[in-house]
């Protein structure tokens, strides 16, 4: 499959990349979301600006209270990072489950977030981690709360001419527990249903919870009614069963040749329960 013709420009710094952005220009990161869309001719930009050689975007930095992951960091480098494994283990766990060895070697977290595939893993995980997305454009830098980032089907808060330079993950306190589980499409390894849970426990009960769902609706979302129902409860089979009843509330549950709406709804319940039981 051969994409439509386009011009190619290699950027050597973030500032240069931003200066090259404009009408009909798209950003090439690891290319593992973009290139398939070009080959299927679902997408035909006039120019690609390659940011994959910008070294500063690949850095994973251990700060006092958070870890900053450069937008150009690959899934493999995230999976191998010691600070993330210690302070945000769900990131490590999820990174290892994305795609396959080859995809993890070149696909990037910034690319995945900008593409916002409704079945991608990172969106659910970053929602549950309470991450921030660091964005840079001609007007300067801004940070977007992950809760404000996803706007709909492949739609995000990213504006034209902007690049995701990093995501910032808060370090987990010792009373926080997290897990990511997914039911994957066996060929693509995308989530048919993926569920990321981060909970904070205090005195044997849930103090707060963040639950990110992917693969279910038109974009990743937080199952807020489940979160709310868990607060103040001890995690037991009964409390979980009662809390997850409306996990798809507010989501327009997708239907495709992998899973019907009914089956996906069923899977969403099974996987959120499974995730919570793993944290019991």
């Amino acid at each position, binding site marked *: 499959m051969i994409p439509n*013709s386009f011009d*190619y420009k290699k950027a050597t710094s973030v500032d240069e990349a931003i200066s090259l952005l404009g009408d009909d220009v798209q950003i090439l990161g690891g290319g593992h979301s973009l*290139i398939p869309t070009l*080959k299927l001719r679902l997408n035909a930009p006039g120019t690609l600006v390659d940011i994959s050689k910008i070294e500063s975007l690949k850095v994973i930095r251990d700060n006092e209270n958070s870890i900053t992951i450069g937008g150009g960091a690959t899934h493999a480098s995230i999976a191998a990072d010691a600070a993330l494994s210690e302070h945000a283990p769900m990131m490590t766990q999820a990174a290892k489950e994305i*795609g396959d*060895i*080859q995809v993890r070697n070149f696909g990037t977290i910034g690319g995945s977030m900008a593409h916002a595939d409704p079945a991608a893993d990172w969106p659910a995980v970053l929602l549950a981690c309470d991450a921030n997305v660091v964005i840079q454009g001609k007007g300067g830098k801004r940070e977007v709360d992950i809760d404000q980032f996803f706007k709909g089907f492949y739609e995000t808060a990213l504006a034209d001419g902007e690049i995701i330079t990093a995501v910032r993950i808060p370090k987990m306190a010792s009373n926080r527990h997290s897990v990511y589980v997914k039911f994957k499409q066996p060929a693509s390894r995308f989530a048919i249903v993926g569920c990321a849970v981060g909970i904070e426990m205090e005195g044997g009960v849930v103090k707060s919870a963040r639950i990110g769902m992917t693969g279910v609706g038109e974009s990743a979302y937080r199952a807020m009614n489940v979160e709310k129902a868990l607060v103040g409860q001890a995690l037991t089979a009964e409390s979980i069963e009662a809390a997850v009843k409306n996990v798809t509330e507010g989501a327009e549950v997708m239907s495709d040749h992998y899973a019907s709406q009914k089956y996906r709804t069923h899977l969403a319940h099974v996987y959120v329960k499974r995730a919570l039981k793993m944290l019991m």
Partner: protein
Amino acid sequence: MANKISVTVNGKQYTGEVESRTLLSDYLREDLSLTGTHIGCDTSSCGACTIHIDGKAVKSCTMLAVQADGCEVTTVEGLATNGNLHPMQESFKEEHGLQCGFCTPGMMMTATDFLKTNPNPSEQEIREALEGNFCRCTGYHNIVRSIQLAAKKMSEAV
């Protein structure tokens, strides 16, 4: 748009012009006549086109040739050295790790990258490492045995 690229493929330097839209898999097969890299699904699923870029396995159907500018590329043709088969190739031969052979180059390229990070893997880990490589003959058992043998040969050689 034509772009000038310079790549080292299997130790040999190539300089030439490629269209921006040329996929690396097509460049290797059509421009360099390195047809050991197979194109199966052409949708980043099957792994038949797996090669190494700077030592890391990648599906060459999901990378532009122009992105390989300045990189070291290894294809299955580059595994053997001085006419001697790589231990991975020997092992696939000895354990009969191929039936039709179409997926074999990709299997071996993924497996050699995998053994670099995990030189002594369990059977389960090998099976997980092959997630992105499909064998339509379903000859996975012997492929796994081949990689187990290669791991043994390579660790003994060190």
